[in-house]
């Protein structure tokens, strides 16, 4: 499981975090260290063991279909970087 800087750039793109050429190398060595740590898991045989997501054996609670939220657009958009006519603005999206 050895990573390359290309891997780093690909993962960075998936995560939408800009990683410059210089960063990529430094990031690579730090990541490789962490991945080495993670490899320890492979030593254990886990065949037949059910994955555990939650410690308590509880199931999803359901919410009544009743409107509880009011319009708070003004408050929520007061902290937005760019809004116009109640819409959040982002660089043009080309389909």
């Amino acid at each position, binding site marked *: 499981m050895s990573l390359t800087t290309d*891997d*780093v750039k690909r*993962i*960075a*793109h*998936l*995560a*939408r*975090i*800009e*990683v410059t050429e210089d960063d990529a190398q430094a*990031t690579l060595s*730090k*990541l490789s*260290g*962490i*991945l*080495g*740590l*993670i*490899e*320890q*898991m*492979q030593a*254990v045989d*886990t065949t037949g*063991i*059910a*994955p*555990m*997501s*939650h*410690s*308590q054996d*509880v199931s*999803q*609670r359901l*919410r009544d279909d009743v409107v509880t939220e009011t319009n*708070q657009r003004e*408050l*929520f958009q*007061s*902290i*937005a*970087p*760019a809004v116009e006519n109640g819409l*959040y603005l*982002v*660089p*043009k*999206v080309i389909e």
Partner: protein
Amino acid sequence: MINASLKDLATALGAKQISSVELTQLFLDRIDRLNPEINAYVTLDADRSLAQAAAADALIAQGRFGPLTGIPFAQKDIFCAKGWRTTCGSKMLENFIAPYDAHIISQFDAAGAVNLGKTNMDEFAMGSSNETSYFGKVQNPWDRTRVPGGSSGGSAAAVAARLAPAATGTDTGGSIRQPASLCGLSGLKPTYGVCSRYGMIAFASSLDQAGPMAKSAEDLALMLNVMAGFDSRDSTSLQREKEDYTRDLNKPLAGLRIGLPREYFAEGLNAGVAKVVMDAIDQYRKLGAETVDISLPNTQLSIPVYYVLAPAEASSNLSRYDGVRYGHRAAEYTDLLDMYSKSRAEGFGAEVKRRILIGTYVLSAGYYDAYYLKAQQLRRLIAQDFTEAFKQCDVIMGPAAPGTAFKTGEKTDDPVAMYLEDLYTIAVNLAGLPGMSVPAGFADGLPVGLQIIGNYFSEARMLNVGHQYQQVTDWHTRMPEGI
């Protein structure tokens, strides 16, 4: 007053020996004086705090008050508090004014408590030293050249330096227990699901829990009474009968079975810390407890498992920070992709970025089975270790951290070295169990914490175990010099 327990403060407030406004001002003045160096607080708003205090005083005057009314608390800056800047230790949220209250914050408000200010923390709760915060590192009040631990380093330092009577923290892999240990405090992470996560900025959803940090087990119990409880806005919040966590504080400990995992006393543990912990356990024997040697065989695995699961969940939880609806947006960008990439590269610090990349990687096509799925399977084994152990004992004890407070900068170059700080605490989060740390002595002049791990929903018993120890020892009353 600055050393008083929550119980004593409540009594003093009730007897009108001091008003909430005076008490709050007292702490604000200390913060003014000491915080510029210690850097425990990131955001203060004296006017707001005092206004809350005044309201509390009005309630007290009418005779309408509970155990926390009028008492100021430091709030870890991971809890959204309406109208307060809430940064989570990150540049990404440097100017984020939360438009709503976390459930925890609402609970404190309802109890009539005062919000003293928002405390510093490792960025997005990722760290064990409070050195990843965008707002600068925090000094350990016991030794200003050392770290307070993390991620709740600001809360720990605030209480240790008596800049607050108590504080809230959060614990995902040890972030309450480890700083509590390094700063000579009591800290508790409850069973997963006991405290609501609504409004608590998410790091690793299946591991995060809020909890109290204070000067004594009794104080923790009083705080937990306010913090715990069902919240319908959190699907993982558990519906259980309301508990009074102070109810068993005074139960005698005779017959208590304490499990001592051999894996917690193996190599990697600082000798000075080991001695303090063993002495504490001796003290428990004197109180009538008996010890049982147990094994938690998968302890070592808990680190790789945690460093797969937590970054994986975090990588997804932090995707919402994209500069579109709130938070940091880059000043210059060429298109949408560039805006995302630059905003996130600028807004997140190095450790956060590393963990997002690891998390993205372990979830990516072709790796899910080998990493994420495998980790979830190992998680079950780790949880089963504890289930087995609790057949032989009532509580498990050991160190909360492998060493005492280390020097600032000592471990920042090697992420893995930092991750090993969490060796004794992480498995508890993976299993969803409650864990606590209480001051047990000093090694090389630095605080050492004793970790107490209980079975699911045994917080009242654990607090009893901590409280009884604190009746016959005075480690928890010690204060750093020059404070």
